[in-house]
């Protein structure tokens, strides 16, 4: 029998959680809607789910607290998608630091939510990371660079911020999640397509060359991202976790 994704929706607004639930159901998913953290814990004790949609602003235990709790418990592998009411960078950063896989700002459309859910599921399933660095590391080090995974930028030796575009960051994260492993272009394209899946149409080769420039990596003799002819690319530099998640 074909697997049906089971999505758990935790939101204190009854209408929103039911509308979202119905929409996802209509699109072939199994959904459970729940109003608060207490019910969520009780439900997860008996039933495993594929993904949790978690509202940040909730009375009682808020989404951030629940997210952190899930990340240290037995459900730490379950992907989490946060819903935040405030269009605020700090919310996003805090959410990602707490271990959420993605976030969506209210008001959102159900179509957008569905796309995000699918992207997160694809990302976590397609290629399980052999180094779970982005799950556990807030600050990753490789060569002269450090990557801040919550602020999503690179830090030079002297602490200067080198900004990455969205696609560059996602590509680098894929590489850092799978160091010393050859990744072909299809895999890279799939893993790199994040939130703008339908809009992103740049070829992986161009993106890799852009990322190399950003890392000041010489394309002829690259020290970080090596080209494997007719196979794809490999991140050949050792990655270390400099600062673990709390």
């Amino acid at each position, binding site marked *: 029998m074909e697997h049906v994704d089971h999505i758990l929706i935790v939101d204190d607004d009854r209408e929103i959680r039911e509308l979202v639930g119905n929409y996802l159901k209509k699109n072939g998913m199994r959904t459970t809607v729940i109003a608060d953290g207490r019910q969520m814990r009780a439900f997860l004790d008996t039933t495993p789910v594929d993904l949790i949609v978690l509202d940040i602003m909730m009375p009682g235990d808020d989404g951030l607290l629940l997210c952190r709790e899930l990340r240290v418990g037995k459900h730490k592998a379950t992907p989490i998608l946060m819903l935040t009411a405030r269009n605020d960078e700090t919310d996003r950063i805090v959410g990602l630091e707490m271990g959420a896989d993605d976030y969506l700002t209210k008001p959102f459309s159900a179509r957008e939510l569905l796309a995000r859910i699918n992207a997160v599921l694809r990302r976590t399933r397609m290629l399980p990371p052999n180094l779970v660095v982005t799950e556990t590391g807030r600050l990753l080090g490789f060569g002269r660079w450090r990557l801040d995974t919550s602020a999503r930028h690179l830090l030079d030796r002297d602490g200067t911020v080198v900004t990455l*575009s969205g696609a560059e960051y996602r590509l680098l994260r894929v590489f850092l999640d799978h160091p010393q492993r050859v990744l072909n272009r299809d895999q890279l394209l799939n893993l790199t397509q994040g939130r703008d899946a339908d809009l992103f149409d740049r070829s992986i080769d161009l993106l890799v060359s852009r990322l190399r420039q950003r890392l000041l990596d010489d394309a002829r003799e690259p020290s970080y991202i090596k080209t494997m002819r007719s196979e794809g690319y490999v991140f050949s530099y050792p990655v270390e976790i400099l600062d673990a998640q709390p």
Partner: protein
Amino acid sequence: MKIALRWPRTLASQLSLIFLVSLVLAHGLSFSLQFYERYESAKSTMLGNLESDVATSIAILDRLPSAERESWLPRLERRNYRYLLGEGEAGQPIDPKAKPVAARSIDEAIGQDYRVTYTDVPGPKKHFQGHLKLTDGTPVVIDVFPSTLSYALWLPVVLLVQLGLLTGCTFLAVRMAIRPLTRLARAAENLDPNVHTRPLDESGPAEVAFAAAAFNSMQSRIASYLRERMQILGAISHDLQTPITRMKLRAEFMDDSTERDKLWNDLNEMEHLVREGVAYARSVHGAAETSQRIDLDSFLDSLVFDYQDMGKQVQLQGKNGAVIITRPHALRRVLVNLVDNALNFAGAAQIVVGARTEGELSIAVLDRGPGIAEAELVQVMQPFYRVENSRNRDTGGTGLGLAIAHQLALALGGSLTLSNREGGGLCAQLKLGAPVRA
């Protein structure tokens, strides 16, 4: 050369001038008055003495046997005048109308008995002589050295010390009066309700303390108004987001129709407005974000790539190599608003980084859209201001984008100016403080 005398502009110099001039004048007046009094009394005493003395001395000389006269002369000599036997020195005869006062006194004393003629004797020590003949025909000369009024050597020193004291006290008093005012002015100028400013020192003289306390309470009042406004805006937007989310979700269950599309567009517009409203309130209130060292080229590069990845026509021109200390999210927001604006009205945007210049960094966002009427270039940065021509709501603007960019540019310590380009289009120029490493 013409020296223009004009009323000084600063309160300090005005007060100093008034104090100093009036004190010096008052002081000078009383000093001169005293001096004059002393001079007059000294003169009348001296002349009185002279009068009686000359009369007595001449009478003595007249009665003395001519052989004894010579020996009496030293005894009759006074400080300012002496008697000589003989014709005296040669000199200019004095016009009787312009006789010195001392000569007149001599006339008063002996004029009735003797005929006295006067001559001026020039020389290093100017003096005059009165010539007369005693009853036995012996010529006698009264040699008068008009005295200069004697004063102590320390007098100018005392005067100078007094002047110094006056100047010093004036300076001190004026400074004391002005300093609290200057401090208040500076505090008012630096008044930024976004940051927690230190309250003004409320010590000092009663008036100063009162003004400082009034200023402090005003400062905290402004801060609380702003906080309140933020809370209201935040609450409204948060409470609006839930119903908008519900409506959007419901709309997605509706069948495809123009009504649904219209509803969808209205909801998007509402959502946009709510977001921008909060963003504007936040930009005025200042961000909590901390500053970081940012590599400017990669910062702009990634911004442009993000647009290009979404299929937008945004180009970057120029590299700068600068590292700046700034708040990256705020700066990004400014640029995103400017680029979005350009994309809305022209469909394409160009970001141009200025060459390295001393102390300033310039980033311009250019478009080839319709531009803005010259008269409205400043007003468009006011919140909710909309220009009359084609830049209107139909293009999706809330009237807050430029206002937010403007506020944030100020919060970043920079400035934002709009201008129309030659050949059409708008140029939004952002100027920031000095790069750290050029």
